[in-house]
């Protein structure tokens, strides 16, 4: 039947339209979440800035301590890789680029003759590494979407414990840095051991430099020792917040592309469908005309049968 093609196309258009509605909704949701996540990242900034400032002041006072978080192993036997991925997909290349960077870290560790330990945040990362039979040391889910400080603390504690007990000698943090809505970058940062206070202070925002000489209570060493675990937590928290913002931004972009594609597809399919309908109509007309002609010419045959010239006489 001539209408078959048209019906198939119409069904496809409806299905693409439905998909478009979904991707459009996801795009809008992601857009509001990016805003929220950005807002949260901004409001967490004063805390990490203050901590860095205290470290600057401690560095200015020449404080050095022998803290387990500062331990530099002479030979790195096991490298910890902390990676922040999302729980849900449909976020474009967000997860795959994190996973690729993390896997490269694992390969680097192996190339150095060291073992690896994977500390994974987010289901997507776990799925990938579990499927490939990697050993996963720690896995946390349900936090990458909207991380709280408590979440960051729990993961930071796990990592710090592994490090302090000497099970891992170095920790790399793989996450996505949020530069702007339009641009995010996968970064690999040395998480542990911490650098000396001078280096930490230099890496900080360097706000107006250290102020005069401080009094410390109980002592500058005690302050630093109490501060280091908080510093580690705050850094992880910052990374989690940036990753969350990046995840939503990636999803927004991916869903926008999907919506645009759906639109394009609808236009293309509509054209095809119209053409198919036109073809069907034309065919039908041809058939009718042909049929009518066939019938008509049948009648004609009876009424005025053309008499071959020359036969008449």
């Amino acid at each position, binding site marked *: 039947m001539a209408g078959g093609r048209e019906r198939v196309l119409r069904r496809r258009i409806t299905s693409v339209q439905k998909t478009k509605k979904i991707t459009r909704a996801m795009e809008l949701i992601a857009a509001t979440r990016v805003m929220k996540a950005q807002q*949260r990242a901004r*409001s*967490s900034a*004063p*805390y*990490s800035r*203050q*901590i860095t*400032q*205290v470290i600057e*002041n*401690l560095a200015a006072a020449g404080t050095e301590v022998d803290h387990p978080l500062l331990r530099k192993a002479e030979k790195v036997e096991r490298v910890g890789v902390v990676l922040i991925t999302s729980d849900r997909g449909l976020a474009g290349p967000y997860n795959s680029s994190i996973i690729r960077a993390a896997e490269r870290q694992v390969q680097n560790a192996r190339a150095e003759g060291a073992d690896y330990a994977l500390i994974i945040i987010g289901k997507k990362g776990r799925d990938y590494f579990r499927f490939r039979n990697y050993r996963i040391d720690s896995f946390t889910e349900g936090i990458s979407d909207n991380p*709280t*400080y408590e979440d*960051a*603390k729990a993961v930071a504690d796990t990592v710090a414990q592994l490090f302090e007990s000497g099970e891992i000698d170095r920790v790399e943090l793989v996450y996505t840095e949020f530069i702007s809505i339009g641009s995010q970058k996968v970064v690999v940062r040395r998480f542990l051991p911490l650098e000396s206070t001078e280096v930490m202070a230099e890496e900080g925002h360097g706000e107006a430099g250290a*102020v*005069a*000489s*401080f*009094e*410390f*209570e*109980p002592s*500058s060493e*005690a*302050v630093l020792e*109490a*501060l280091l675990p*908080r510093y580690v*937590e*705050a850094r992880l*928290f910052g990374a989690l917040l940036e990753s969350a913002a990046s995840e939503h931004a990636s999803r927004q972009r991916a869903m926008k592309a999907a919506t645009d594609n759906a639109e394009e597809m609808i236009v293309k399919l509509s054209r095809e469908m119209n053409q198919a309908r036109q073809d069907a109509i034309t065919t039908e007309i041809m058939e009718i005309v042909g049929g009518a002609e066939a019938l008509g010419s049948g009648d004609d045959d009876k009424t005025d049968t053309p008499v071959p010239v020359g036969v008449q006489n």
Partner: protein
Amino acid sequence: MTFQVELVSPEGIAYSGEAEMVIARTVGGGEIAFQPGHVPFIGVLAVWSVDVVHPDGGRDTLAVHRGFVQVAGTKVTILSDMSEASGEIDVDRARAAREVAEAALAADKDDAAAAEALARADVRLTVANAEA
């Protein structure tokens, strides 16, 4: 003369206000009060409340369970990842936590976590009462 007080938590600036005096308790140092013009100071805070005395004599009490205080120039910054303003405290929950911690301590005198929890619950209750 007043100075600016800020309670900075990882989630944002939890509290800020003008103060004439800030009273806190540091680890090993006991209670300490800061007034404008105090020498630059950084201290580790004990599980205790922080009192912010306003110029008009009123005061805000904050439960700070862990953190640091930094005094520099005309600014007091309290850094804490565990803190509450008196209005945020759930008294019933703090009471319940206190009982649980006491029971745990009765069973095992050296339970550090329970001792900490007890101290936190106590501070919460003190702060909440101070307001009532």
